[in-house]
């Protein structure tokens, strides 16, 4: 059963979370994400769920982690300033392997910045905002439908991989209304890995990984006695500083997130014969897609690669799209963040002409077309 409705992006996020089984939300309202909290404040209590408005964003994610450890599918939503405050707990959730979803509706930063304007400035923060070599999973929807769907995907990945998953979009997508098909969630969505052995005094394997490299941590309250820590730990969950154990743990935490790459391949648009390859995500990808059509009309063989997963970087898909390119244009609403990943993958073999725009207004189709035409005129295309 499915229904087509006019839905706002932030509402779609809340609906996607509910459909994915989210039953706990703790947050602190902030523009431009507040409608997510508003929608869940109405919906969760009616479904036997819990909504808590916390005193700040640090406490919000702390409460989410506690609920998640207790077995709930739990989420918070915020914007840049709140996302900054959540970084400490994000690191903890990564290392302690606590599944949760964190939504960041990006606005202009740094600091309180531009509270009501769109931005894509938190892309590197989502990757490196918390200290240490932390593996991350970050999804970037580009439409209201995709906000709904990828929020569900975020929960599925968070549970399966026992890791925080960040849903990253911007003010325009958050507040835009589009038609959304609210389909029932796919049946049989895999839950979180839990121990195979029953609780008992001999249980010593709370952080033993499964075949996918994901720790099989019991939920609190199931009779297991175990230790959860932000210190490096062994498979028992006990602190350790043994270099080999620590190195293996960090390697495992990074490797397990690779599963997200298969779950969310990038979208390819008119790339078959493209030698001018645009690369963009989120709202910017919408403009880039329209720009590709305009460029094609003007005889430029353009195409678009649109990552839906920003972290881990879909390196193989990027390489495939870039290989035949004579010009690569990564566009984003910041001073250069994910375009640096494009540069890293492209190396020095391909001419790059990134289009970067920070300041609070979105990249228009016209300016993107003009940029590409100028880059080709200037002989970047050899």
């Amino acid at each position: 059963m499915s229904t087509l409705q006019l839905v706002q992006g932030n509402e779609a996020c809340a609906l996607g979370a509910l459909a994915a089984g989210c039953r706990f939300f703790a947050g602190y309202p902030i523009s431009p994400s507040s409608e997510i909290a508003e929608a869940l404040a109405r919906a969760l209590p009616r479904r036997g769920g819990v909504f808590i408005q916390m005193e700040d964003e640090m406490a919000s994610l702390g409460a989410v982690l506690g609920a998640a450890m207790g077995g709930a599918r739990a989420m918070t939503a915020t914007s840049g300033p709140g996302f900054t405050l959540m970084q400490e707990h994000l690191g903890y959730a990564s290392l302690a392997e606590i599944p949760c979803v964190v939504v960041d509706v990006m606005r202009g930063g740094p600091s309180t910045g531009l509270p009501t304007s769109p931005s894509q400035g938190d892309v590197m923060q989502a990757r490196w905002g918390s200290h240490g070599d932390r593996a991350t999973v970050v999804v970037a929807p580009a439409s209201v439908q995709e906000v709904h769907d990828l929020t569900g995907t975020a929960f599925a990945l968070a549970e399966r991989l026992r890791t925080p998953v960040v849903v990253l979009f911007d003010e325009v997508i958050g507040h835009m209304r589009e038609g959304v098909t609210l389909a029932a969630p796919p049946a049989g969505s895999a839950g979180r890995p839990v121990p195979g052995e029953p609780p008992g005094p001999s249980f010593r394997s709370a952080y033993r990984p499964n075949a996918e490299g994901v720790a099989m941590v019991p939920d609190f309250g199931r009779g297991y006695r175990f230790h959860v820590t932000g210190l490096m730990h062994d498979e028992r969950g006990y602190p350790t500083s043994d270099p080999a154990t620590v190195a293996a743990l960090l390697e495992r935490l990074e490797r397990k997130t690779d599963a997200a790459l298969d779950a969310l391949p990038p979208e390819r648009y008119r790339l078959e014969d493209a030698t001018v390859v645009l690369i963009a995500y989120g709202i910017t990808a919408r403009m880039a897609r329209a720009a590709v059509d305009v460029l094609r009309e003007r005889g430029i063989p353009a195409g678009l690669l649109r990552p839906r997963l920003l972290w881990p970087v879909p390196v193989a898909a990027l390489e495939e799209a870039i290989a035949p390119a004579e010009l690569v244009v990564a566009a984003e609403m910041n001073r250069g963040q994910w375009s640096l990943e494009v540069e890293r993958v492209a190396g020095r073999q391909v001419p790059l002409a990134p289009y970067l725009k920070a300041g609070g207004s979105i990249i228009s189709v016209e300016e993107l077309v003009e940029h590409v035409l100028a880059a080709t005129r200037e002989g970047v295309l050899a």
Partner: protein
Amino acid sequence: MTWRVDSRFAGAGGQGLALAAVVVAEAGLASGYAVALTQEYGPEARGGASRADVVLSDEPIANPQCGIPDILLALHDKAWHKFARTRPAVMAALAEGRCTALVDADLVRVEPGVAGILALPFEAAARTELRAKVVANMIGVGAFACVSGRFSRDAIEEAVAKRSPEAFRPVNRAAVRRGWDMAAAHGSVFDGSLVGHAVSA
């Protein structure tokens, strides 16, 4: 040929233009179109003129932003000032027949001699004929739907009814019909050709 209609609904705060845009977007969905609705947010949405934009298309919409509107509904002079009078590109589009403006005949002071403007008594009809000043926006929706050529009269009326609390459904239905008829009465202006513009596929 793929088409899209960029439309802007503008007025003073409280005139219900955001709701008008929602109704049009929902009518679009019900008619099988792709829709994208964006509206002002933040300090600029407080007081003064406000706007909500709806893009309609028969194809998925990549760019959701309203460009030079194909149709501009302006129910207040502040809105006309902000979104037409002070925007040379919009005034040029009006003059060249690329934009149609539906403006309140009493509340908007339009420039004499500019083509493409249809001044209709939205607010006066709401007040005197329907005894409900608040439905001026729905009269506007009816006129918009007629001018756009993209909706059946039933489709737009149903979309309005769906958004109305039961007690106000009859007056809202009457409002949208009144608006449709007002615009249709200017059939010599609108020859039945579709509003909107072709886009590359």
